């Protein structure tokens, strides 16, 4: 058990300070953006999408789309990944992985529009499309994370009398967590970007701002929407990184 000594304090402060670097950067970028915006004279077209209510609406909708689809991906892909790494599932693995591969290989634009045309427009099916699109990283990382657990550790656990389920819960999963979380983090950031497209299928989001700028040739809208999306992606990535650190088992 080491105790924090006097000479440790600057190192700790530095570590803590690093935690604030990214949020400070994001805040600085957003602040400069808003300062710049407040100095512009928006015409009627720009004002439609660049007002407080509209931006907040779009951002919240965007977070909703990303949040729900990520929760769904985790809820489906992680258990599936666990299942597919069990010995009995060896033969089942290829088709599932192929589907996951296809889900991401098909351009996000295509998946989203296809879902809209076959299933219907709106938020619900947009979330379904985003879920399919982000499926692969989480599934694959879950599988890889579990597969890379040292077999001798598992053997040790079994040798100690732990049941298969206990080995899974107490040894395999905790050791796989860092890799799984890395996959979740990837999926999250992917979804922040992909969710800009669902503006085309009546699902809203920050894409509303970007698309409005593209079709009316108002660069201000495109830049604002783009910067906000990027800032959101950085923020989401940052929070996921903190979660990764918090959930990482001690001793690794």
């Amino acid at each position, binding site marked *: 058990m080491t105790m924090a000594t006097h000479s440790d304090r600057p190192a700790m402060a530095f570590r803590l300070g690093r935690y604030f670097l990214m949020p400070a950067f994001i805040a600085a970028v957003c602040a400069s953006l808003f300062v710049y915006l407040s100095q512009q004279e928006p*015409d*009627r*077209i720009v004002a*439609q*999408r660049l007002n407080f209510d509209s931006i907040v609406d779009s951002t919240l909708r965007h977070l909703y789309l990303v949040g729900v689809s990520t929760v769904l991906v985790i809820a489906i892909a992680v258990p599936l990944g666990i299942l597919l790494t069990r010995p009995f599932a060896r033969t089942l693995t290829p088709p599932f992985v192929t589907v996951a591969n296809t889900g991401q290989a098909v351009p996000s634009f295509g998946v989203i*529009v296809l879902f*809209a*045309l076959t299933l*219907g*427009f*709106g938020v619900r099916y947009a979330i379904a499309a985003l879920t399919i699109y982000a499926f692969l990283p989480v599934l694959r990382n879950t599988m890889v994370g579990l597969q890379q657990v040292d077999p001798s550790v598992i053997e040790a656990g079994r040798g100690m009398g732990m049941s298969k389920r206990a080995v899974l819960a107490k040894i395999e999963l905790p050791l796989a967590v860092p890799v799984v979380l890395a996959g979740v983090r990837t999926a999250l950031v992917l979804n922040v970007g992909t969710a800009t497209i669902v*503006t*085309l*299928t*009546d699902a*809203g989001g920050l894409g*509303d701002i970007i*698309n*409005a700028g593209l*079709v*009316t*040739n108002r660069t201000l809208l495109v830049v604002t929407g783009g910067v906000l999306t990027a800032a959101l992606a950085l923020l989401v990535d940052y929070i996921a990184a903190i979660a990764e650190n918090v959930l990482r088992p001690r001793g690794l």
Partner: protein
Amino acid sequence: MQRHARSTHALSRSLALAAVLALLMAACGGGGPAGDGGKEGGDAVADTIDLSGVNIAVGSKEFTEQQIVGQMARLALEAAGARVDGQAIGLTGTQNVRGALQQGRIDMYWEYTGTGWIEILQQDELLEGSDAYYQRVKEADAANGVVWLRPSEVNNTYALFVGPNVDLGVQTISDLAALARENPDRATLCAATEFIVRPDGLGGVTKAYNFEFSQVNELALDLAINAAIQGQRCTVGEIFQTDPQISKKNLNVLEDDQGFFPVYNLAMTIRRDAYEQHAEAYDTLFGAITDLLDNETMIELNGRREFEGESFDDIARDFLVSRGIISG
């Protein structure tokens, strides 16, 4: 044995050479001026104009109507003897085509007066009538070194429509407005972002006719039209006046009885430097084509592409030949 091998080798080499030559000829055979300048049957308009030796680059936007008229311009100029570069026919987006024009990468393309006013010149003041849009655009764009020729009657402006599966009992936008005030649930809209944010779109029409849609669904244009035709998500859709789906799918286009929507007349725009060298020739040639175009004609030509799948080149050529602009 060796002689046999050598002759087979020689045979396959000549075959390969022939294949390469065939490919080269196919590749090179595509472009080039049409015809050998034969002036037989010189009734066609293009035959009365001489642009031989002139190099021209024509562009267009990517949607059907633009590519058809873009090919018309190319064919007509070629028939007059010019050497036309049509690579920029089909560029995506007004900005790209217009940018190419202003940078001199193309010499001309067909634009719409309303687009010129609202999108290119970035004006958000709404004008009244064809003449107003044409005159103001022509005047203001002169400062950018762009000449607008006399516009056609094609008015590719916004329209609201009710799909075949929905019965609202309305014929004009005023009717729709009255219905919306009485029975808001029946007035829901599927439209594209462009229509929703532009002052000459949703905001303007609802203000001019004094009504609101109880729900506005924002989708990509094709999806919005699709949804409005299905009639489940919304009762009213947004469409452009020359969309061939109007006649094919029997859409009930509501009459803009108060004349709110801006005018988008199709007109040829040319870089001033290029224009001034052969002004009369261009005026005559494009004037003749312009006189033949109106919404009904455009709907029919657009339909040939979208429903019959004919190539832009064929559609344009057939039209120009049948109307005596170029000889067959």
